[in-house]
């Protein structure tokens, strides 16, 4: 059983990974979106004491996927930090883990609405978008041809015979893609929400992150 599914965006071949990361073999590029680091402590600041373990959980998963693909370059597709001050709350261990992941490869922080100005002191380059061979990586999807974006946290609900389940998914129609959120505490938005209809003109496919493999399901069949 394969942990990855082949997905084409604007003619380029990608591997959608079960972890929610996207790998471009040709460029040895790994893309992850919406890490939302320090979301737990962000809620804690406002009186909701969510467990402070989301950052370490997210970085552990990121480390595992980087170990598997050994990318030359990593793009964090925006909303990497849950709020503007989140990077200051990273504990020493998490900082160290992060710089360990960056060692020996290029690292791009794309800015997002949660982190319009990602920290410059954490290693890596900061950019509002990045383009490689006609493919544009940006945080908020515009629906442009050849665009790979995040922001919406797509999830799909699949029902059959009175049972149903909800999972994160990649959403793509072959011309553009919206990536699932990677962060441990990042919630989701149903792909039946109007926000997706504005990006994909016709029906699109949800590559649903199952238990041990991905499943390609037409968005119109999800609820």
């Amino acid at each position, binding site marked *: 059983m394969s942990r990855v599914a082949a997905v084409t965006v604007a003619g380029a071949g990608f591997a959608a990974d079960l972890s929610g990361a996207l790998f471009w073999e040709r460029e040895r590029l790994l893309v992850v979106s919406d890490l939302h680091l320090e979301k737990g402590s962000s809620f804690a600041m406002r009186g909701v004491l969510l467990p402070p373990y989301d950052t370490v959980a997210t970085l552990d998963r990121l480390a595992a996927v980087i170990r598997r693909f050994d990318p030359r370059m990593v793009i964090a597709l925006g909303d990497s930090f849950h709020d503007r001050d989140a990077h200051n709350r990273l504990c020493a261990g998490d900082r160290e883990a992060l710089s360990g992941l960056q060692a020996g490869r290029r690292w791009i922080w794309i800015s997002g609405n949660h982190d319009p100005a990602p920290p410059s002191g954490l290693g890596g380059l900061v950019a509002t978008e990045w383009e490689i061979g006609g493919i544009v990586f940006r945080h908020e999807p515009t629906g442009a041809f050849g665009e790979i974006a995040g922001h919406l946290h797509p999830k799909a609900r699949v029902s059959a015979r009175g049972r149903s389940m909800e999972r994160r998914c990649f959403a793509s129609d072959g011309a553009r893609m919206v990536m699932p959120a990677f962060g441990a505490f990042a*919630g989701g938005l149903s792909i039946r929400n109007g926000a997706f209809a504005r990006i994909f003109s016709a029906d699109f496919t949800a590559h649903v992150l199952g238990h041990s493999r991905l499943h390609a399901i037409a968005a119109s069949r999800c609820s």
Partner: protein
Amino acid sequence: MGIADREAQPLLPDGFLRWFAARGWSPRAHQLALLRKARDGRPALLIAPTGAGKTLAGFLPTLVEISGKGQHLHTLYISPLKALAVDIARNLETPIAEMNLPIRVETRTGDTPVSRRQRQRRYPPDVLLTTPEQIALLLASDDASFLFSSLQRVVLDELHALATSKRGDLLSLALARLWRLAPQMRTIGLSATVADPHALARFLAPQPRGKTVSADIVEADGAAAPIVEMLDTSERLPWAGHSARHALTEIYDLIRRNRTTLVFVNTRSQAEMLFQDLWRINDDGLAIALHHGSLDVAQRRKVEQAMTAGRLRGVVCTSSLDLGVDWGDVDLVINIGAPKGASRLMQRIGRANHRLDEASRAVLVPANRFEVLECRAAIDAVNENAQDTPPLRTGALDVLAQHVMGCACGGPFHADDLYEEVRTAAPYAALPRADFDGVVDFVATGGYALKSYERFARIRQDKEGRWRVANPRARQSYRLNVGTIVEEAMLKVRLVRSRHGGGKGPTGAIARGGRMLGEIEEYFIEGLVAGDTFVFGGEIVRFEALVEDQVYVSRANDESPKVPSYMGGKFPLSTYLAERVRRLLDDERAWRGLPHQVREWLNLQSRFSRVPHAREMIVETFPRAGKHYLVCYPFEGRLAHQTLGMLLTRRLERARARPLGFVANEYALAVWMLGDPSSMIRQGRLDLDALFDPDMLGDDLEAWLAESALMKRTFRSCAIISGLIARRFTGAEKSRRQVLFSTDLVYDVLRKHQPDHMLLRAARADAATGLLDIRRLSDMLARIRGRIDHKPLERISPLAVPVMLEIGRETVYGEASDELLAEAAEQLVREATGT
């Protein structure tokens, strides 16, 4: 004053005696007994059947004692239902007015206007009637000691219903607080008959360290023994199902021949179905109504009023009518389907005929053959007056966390003092200090091993070491989220015109608005796809769309709904009734008391396989239509069987039996697989003793809990009750869809990084008895150890037919998450290729 002098004093003043006489009554023995307990300063538990004048008995000491100085709260009355509090206030008006007593009675519920609530704090009434949540709120205010220091008495109504839930935990902690604020306060508990009155009586007295103390128990004279019969149907008894449709005309006939009949069923969907069926044959146009918890409130009130006014001939209802409020002259109770528990059945029967001197009449209508056995066992239990109410709880940690926050809102506290106070509450009497400190730590900073939230603390210690609320936000959040009832996420159901019929084509927009039919559980709707039909509001409807928190449905012409909405009742078969059913099966002479059809069924089973003995479990294995089945009969209720099914499929997977799914009912569990268990057992590749070994409650259980949706639901409710997350945010209530994070994700992360966290422990404690019923499963596995009898069969046995028929009707379980997704993906391929 010596004891003899006190005895000589009349318990009731002249005015009261005259009032009793004027009504042609005389005080009942238990009413006098409660007056005596009150005079002697003793807490008391009154055990009495419905209709015994329980409420008046509970209030007599208060009515006698209040002399009219006023301005101080004398008595608190606490009931589980606000409707009951309002009802009781009305009932108290009569004696107070007729005897011209100088007593002011007021209610305080969520509906009480703010102005009156404020007035009640400054000028408290003599008697305040309220709910456990309102007491918690009053205690969390800084004028609590002013308000309660004069308190003489707390009357707890329907204590049997309150004490066995988390609401009971919260109430017990409130009592502990009240005992501290008002040491002179004594309790009176009012309860239906319970299995262990002594345990319940502990609830009513402050527990000293290292000892147990109980309130005095007063038992009212029993009511006339009820007359309970099982419907001896002339129709063919179904093998499975819960609708009792076979007996429909017989049920209708019973309603026709009686003045007012309450027809109890176990679930909302059964109520819907039966109501619809009854109206289909209602040629006499009898006034038959429907009442269940998810109907629109206005509609429910209308039914209740018509009922009280005596305008109805029948009401089809669920446990929404189980408790309290008096619905007038009911002369027959019909219980459809499984009684589930002996005490539950007795309380339902008590709804018929509120007059003690006449016997209540009830007819049980079993919906299938197994339910005949259960009904027989229940009738025997009723005749012996045997009770099977659940035991007293060990207080939950999430509820304690809520209480600790409430205490801080009421004023600063020393941990040592609060610990001693909490332990006077019976459910928390054995609470270890470390657990208490863990809860305080949780309330303060989340209780995490990683100490990074000190600066976000909700409560903080001052220089004297007293804990104080750290910010107004924490206080407000407590006030908005008090209580232990975590409701299922519900969606509003609206009836609109079908977009299929209207000529607009399948993509036409849904007409918004539409008549409101009621509310439905979100998780049920999530399992539907557009076009699926189900029963709701007494009719078959088609699911059209879900838009935000509104479910749009249209009328469907289908004969039967496509998606079964039977989700099982809330309560599983009681351990006690299960034991009785097993004994009944074991005793062939007792079969004579069963209907002919059932006897024949059991005889057939004896010849073909075996009827299980009381202390063993039989496992049957047989092939059928290309698959192999394993059916066992633990009789431990659907919830425990579901958990067993989840764990067995894991083990069968490892044994390479390739299990595909399972279905459980109250009595049995059927697992189907590709492998052949008969030959695997014969060849020694599968060992039944090992398969059912209690060690499945170790690693296998842990592994399953990591993913179980039921466990995540349990965790979510602990997170809400403990105050970790809010069910209501300031301003408007947000639906779960809009909450900005998912508790499922929190569960996953916490489980991995701090598996011994207080909230996970609380969720596990709930899982032992709640949706997963693990404790019962564990007891069962111990009971059948070394007593499993394997019957390899050529084909399905008569006893297995009922559970096998559930396949397709009940939700089929399996952990096959990927299979479900794969199926959806394949269907797409078929559609695309036109095959």
